[in-house]
């Protein structure tokens, strides 16, 4: 709605960070997804964000936040691990694990969480500001 443009802007931003958290969650959940060596490993998910700059009606030139442009995939090669006991192991005793680093994923999770919180903070401040504006002249 055009009356409170910052709120829809922040809704877009929140969706991007929520998607990022989803992607990190997917990556972490598949940290131990084992594949055969003749298959592609689980590929890490990367969220690609892009600016929505068609502008908002109130202030042309200022965009309307960001949106998810798509999802990029990490290495399909993964890493080969020697695990002869595994039912999916090949004749050399190797299996393919995804090339995902847990520490990197946790760092990204915190970044996504903080980004989400920052967007929420803007919503809160904007709401307070709008309510204060309605008090003018009272």
């Amino acid at each position, binding site marked *: 709605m055009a009356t409170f443009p910052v709120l*829809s802007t922040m809704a877009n931003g929140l*969706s991007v960070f929520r998607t990022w958290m989803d992607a990190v969650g997917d990556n972490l959940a598949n940290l131990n997804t084992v594949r055969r060596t003749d298959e592609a490993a689980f590929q890490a998910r990367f969220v690609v964000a892009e600016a929505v700059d068609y502008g908002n009606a109130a202030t042309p030139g200022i965009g309307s936040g960001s949106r998810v442009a798509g999802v990029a995939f990490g290495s399909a090669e993964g890493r080969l691990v020697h695990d002869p006991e595994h039912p999916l192991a090949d004749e050399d005793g190797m299996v393919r694990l995804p090339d995902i680093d847990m520490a990197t994923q946790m760092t990204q999770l915190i970044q996504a969480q903080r980004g989400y919180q920052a967007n929420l903070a803007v919503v809160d401040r904007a709401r307070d500001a709008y309510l204060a504006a309605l008090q003018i002249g009272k």
Partner: protein
Amino acid sequence: MPIGPVAGVSSAAFTPLATLAETASTRGAASTQPSGFGDAVIGALDDLSAAHNTADALATRAATGQLADVHDYTIAATEASLATELTVAVRNKAVEAFTSIMNMPL
């Protein structure tokens, strides 16, 4: 500082409700006509109604487990609440102005 006449207060400001309803139905086509206070109120009410409809639809989706983003609902509810506050503020100002005029000693 000279205080000029209030531009919004004209005959259009006191359009009867029946006319307002007609204005509402033809509002999209009649954008060339001068917009009075009535049009502004009708527009605000339309926005308010749309905001509440959005929030209600999202609440239903939340209740039925189809809501992808929690913040979609809370932001829609915030927008609806702010729009309500805004409309109430405008109405209060209008009633205040009307009361002031009615209390004018003649």
